[in-house]
């Protein structure tokens, strides 16, 4: 074969060690098994299974993708495709508190960007980054469906509505 070029570092640069194995805890496995009962195809359980895995370890690692691909008889590439399609699956570890600031129009014109700026500058991080102590990650998100109580900030699963720079300032201090 002519012109074979050395394999690109692409794979190793972007992804962690996929030779590591990982598995659900017994409780999560039981939830996963119950999930399969709810759908006529195994594949349909992928989204909830990814949620389940993320609840367990905080993010969806490449090992998780390989593990779930095995459980659901999928090609890992398809799982990767799904994980990267949806915003909520964290493709890298996030802080204990994931601060998600909605900056869509209704929030923006109620000064959501000021809140976003305040979060970043107070914590000294860039968008999507986590504080060094692993406490807080800040990301900008699209409409959270809470425009009537804009601006809204979602921290992990909870909405903080009618937020202001001051209220977020205080709130950030209480996050441990």
């Amino acid at each position, binding site marked *: 074969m002519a012109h074979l070029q050395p394999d690109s570092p*692409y794979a190793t640069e972007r992804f962690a060690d996929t030779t590591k194995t990982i598995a659900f805890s017994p409780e999560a496995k039981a939830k996963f098994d119950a999930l399969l009962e709810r759908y006529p195809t195994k594949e349909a359980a992928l989204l909830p299974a990814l949620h389940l895995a993320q609840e367990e370890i905080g993010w969806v690692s490449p090992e998780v993708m390989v593990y779930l691909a095995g459980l659901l008889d999928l090609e890992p590439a398809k799982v990767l495709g799904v994980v990267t399609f949806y915003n909520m699956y964290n493709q890298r570890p996030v802080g204990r508190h994931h601060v998600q600031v909605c900056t869509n129009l209704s929030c923006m014109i109620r000064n959501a960007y000021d809140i976003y700026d305040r979060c970043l500058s107070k914590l000294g991080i860039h968008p999507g980054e986590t504080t060094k102590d692993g406490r807080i990650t800040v990301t900008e998100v699209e409409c959270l469906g809470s425009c009537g109580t804009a601006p809204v900030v979602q921290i992990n699963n909870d909405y903080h509505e009618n937020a202001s720079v001051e209220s977020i300032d205080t709130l950030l201090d209480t996050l441990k």
Partner: protein
Amino acid sequence: MAKVTIDGIDVEVPDGINVVEAAKAADVHVPHFCYHPALSVVGQCRMCLVEIDGMPKLQAGCATSVRDGMKISVHNDKVDKARKGQMEFLLINHPLDCPICDKAGECPLQDYSFNYGAVASRYGDVKRTYPGMDRTPIGPHVMQNMNRCIHCTRCIRFCDEITGTGELAFIKRGASTEVGIFPGRPVDNWMSACVTDVCPTGALTAREFRFESRVWNLESTESVCNGCDVGCNIFVEHRSGKIYRYKPRVNPEVNDYWLCDYGRFSHERYETDRVVVPRMMRDDYQSIAGWSEAIDEIASRLRTTSGDKIAVIASSQLTNEDAWLLRQLFIDRLGSKNADVVVDDIAPIRMKSRNGWLEGKQAGPNFRGVRAAGIKPTGGRSAEELMTKGADGIDVLVVTEAAFSARATSAEVIANLRKARFLVVLAWENHPLADAADVVLPTTIFAEKSGTFTNVQGRLQKIVAGSLPKGEALPEWEILRRVGVALAPDEVSYAFSEVEELFDQMVSKTPALKSLDWSGIEQFGVTGAPQGS
């Protein structure tokens, strides 16, 4: 059937086919990227937008089935404006690097940009790039340049729907969407290089063909792959006697649009030291000989022995015409009882025709045809016996191809065959068996000769000589003809010069092929050819 009007042309087409296919009946081409006749319809590229009377919006031709009475405009101002719009979208982030792209010359994106591309770009911003994905090997045969990709997903659908291996997927979304593999899981299936065929841009190219040649500098000859007994239809693409690549040639009954990697790259076997002149053993040393000298020597040896002492080992690479003449000469005329054909087994290779899967299990293209021509031992010794027990007592042994089997390189087999008093080996490459022969005759490779093969379905398919024979090489049938002339100078059946004439002789004496003529072998081959086993 549905009567439809396409750009003012009335045509009748089968019900339910899509507009892209229906337009072919009117000889109108609907530009498209994502649509592929053998893959599912996704309607993503929006190039095939057409206007249909009575529908307010333009419709995707690939996803719209024709109905009786439909009036379709493939070209009008509205459609062309839309198509130019899509072309602009596809090109704003495309690197436009045709001068260094291997797809250039056979690239739909390039072709359509001549028809629908703007002369000047309205895009004044930074092009999107995929750092680290501009020359990424994503499999043993496939190189990816994501910057050139237009997101048509043909490659993804190929791996999902044809091979079922699913190595490729869309990753991320929106303008960042990329086609990718899961790291560490390369596109490594037995037909992986087909993704480079279906790719309508230079995003996926075959690693073996990159930077080898501009495609417009290649000659293309219709032929049949000789890698196995499926007989996939191919174009042999060559220049100055060097084969650069095989490309699948559509035959819905055999290989549809596909070609396996083993077959596709099997031409690499011809990049070797070819035998270019006849050689004869003189004083334990093979030296160059002339053709007539070599043929005369063989004829005189044949003349002085009897049929039970003449043996032939035929290769499954022989064409039906070669095999027919071989039988006529060695079995019918000389009465050889020891003629046999050999083929190696290979791990089954699956190939998807439009009607289902075919399986190739033999390493040669024409074992069945050679056997059906009558090349089998009649009370004498089989090739297996000659190879394992030795050719003692055989006066003349003719091997039609040195590489008739992988076992032909083994010292034991060579020693056994060498036990024949006079060993004639036809060869296209230097080979240890040829080195042991009394006479070595240079033969053409399949790309340098014409003839027919009979595949696993009993389908007679034509191969066509594309390049000139290397050196003094001759096709097997011509070598056999010359031997025949030397043995019987007045015999009229040897008085031909073209393989077509030989073919006519063959069909006239083969009831199953009766009334077939050379030019009548259709594009997709002729079924019902006799098959031996």
